[in-house]
């Protein structure tokens, strides 16, 4: 890929990254961090690419380890974030839960 194209993508992504999270309430810090954490699990794609390219047992072994770790990061990350956010779902329904005592 053209070097300038890479630098452009990189720079623009930085600004988008800054922009999307600049006004988040502290309540959501933990889920947001956990969700961002799951997104970088997409290194799984890279791990699959290098596993495809591997020509020695050492390379294949290391790539497969990377695949296992990246899968844990990605899938585990999204699942645990969903569990956290599931807890917030009832808060729109006011009084519903407080009245059942």
């Amino acid at each position, binding site marked *: 890929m053209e070097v300038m194209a890479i630098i452009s993508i990189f720079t623009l992504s930085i600004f988008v990254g800054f922009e*999307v999270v600049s006004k988040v309430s502290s309540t959501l810090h933990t889920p*947001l961090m956990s969700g961002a*954490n799951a997104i970088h699990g997409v290194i799984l794609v890279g791990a699959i690419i290098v596993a495809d390219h591997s020509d020695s047992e050492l390379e294949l072994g290391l790539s497969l380890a990377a695949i296992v770790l990246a899968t844990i990061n990605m899938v585990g990350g999204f699942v645990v974030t969903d569990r956290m956010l599931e807890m917030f779902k009832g808060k729109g329904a006011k009084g519903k839960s407080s009245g059942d005592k």
Partner: protein
Amino acid sequence: MSRFLYELIGLSTGVMFILALKGLSHPRTARRGNLLGATGATIATIAVFFYSSDGRLPLNNLGWILGAIAFGLIVGVPAARKVQMTAMPQLVALFNGVGGAAAALVAIVEYLKLGQIAPTAVVIATVFTVVVGSTSFSGSVVTFLKLQELMTTRPVVLAGGRFVVAGTLVATLVCAGWVVTSLGTTPLLFLAGLSLAFGILFVLPVGGADVPIVISLLNAFTGLTVAAGGYLLDSTLLIIAGTLVGASGTILTRLMAEAMGRSLFGTLFGAFTAKPQDSSATGEDRTVKSGSPDDVAILLNYARRVVIVPGFGLAVAQAQHTVRELADLLSAKGIDVVYGIHPVAGRMPGHMNVLLAEANVPYEQLSEMDEVNPTFPQTDVALIIGANDVVNPAAKTTPGCPIYGMPILDVAQAGNVIFLKRSMRPGFAGIENELLFDAKTTLLFGDAKASLTRVVSALKAL
């Protein structure tokens, strides 16, 4: 599939990640945002099986690849599903660490393959990925050990700590130069080893209460390694996704530090500059006023306004439901009850909100620190359940203590202060709390859930 289509899918996935982060920053759209991110990641993973740069399909080692993914699923999904909500921060730390390790491994494999023909720019990106990925991995493991309380939660400062850290950093940089000039495998392994050591040394001096900030920082680090990995593998998607996480993670780290009233620098290097604590001032024979559940029930019964300050001890005892029962009982008596939530109550910003939401505590009873602090002078009873550091006046009065400068809930302003505590053991940050010895403080020792149950029945009997 054609290169064009593959790149188009990559770009769409990148956009989905942007929307996912955007969604995650608002309560209403957070869950949808997360699902969108998961969908994007799944699409990207499927697409890579149907494209290869030389048009040869299926991928080599396909069976192995699928097997490794299946193994990752078998480990990751149950871990994420079964983890107690109280232990969730350390699981996130661990997930982040393995992501960093995966990025470092990808870079190492690519380097082994290219060998002597690697252009300098590629080698530099490899070095960056290996250094930061390994640091993120070992650092995350240390944060896991701290949060799981498998090691001390106090800052660990080695003799001459700052020189050891600086020395390791210099050695890492020298080794990085060695890799770039010699292109050998041995220097790269040395580099990985040094980076792992640096990650450990970097996190050890961080005090328990500041660990979440470090997790967030390491999360941003891992994002950047993924971006560098994207450069190595010529993948636009990895560059976009990694950079997004790196940038948003950096902002998030700063926001978290602000919410806790900490500077990032102070968090990371505070332990090196802090004066040793004067432990002799806290005489062991000082008396505290310990009460019975009946005393506590009476105090609560004749209050007009009660602020409940929940802490991690409440979560550990799984007492969320019992505290709600108590709050309902008090509300039924016409007493004004609110929960004062410190931004970092629990182990991470927002962690306590998650735990109380799990117990169906009505959202409007949850009050943020800035809202509740001015109301303490009008509050008759502050009921502190399993919290300590977030109400410790030392944060205001004792310069040099590890939590100095952290905003706290001003419970000392309330008419009466009740601590439900397991023991006199100091909180997560390991600092003595002067408020425990105050004349208006009553202590009720025991497991938070057992104590609350006894208070509830005493209150019903009144």
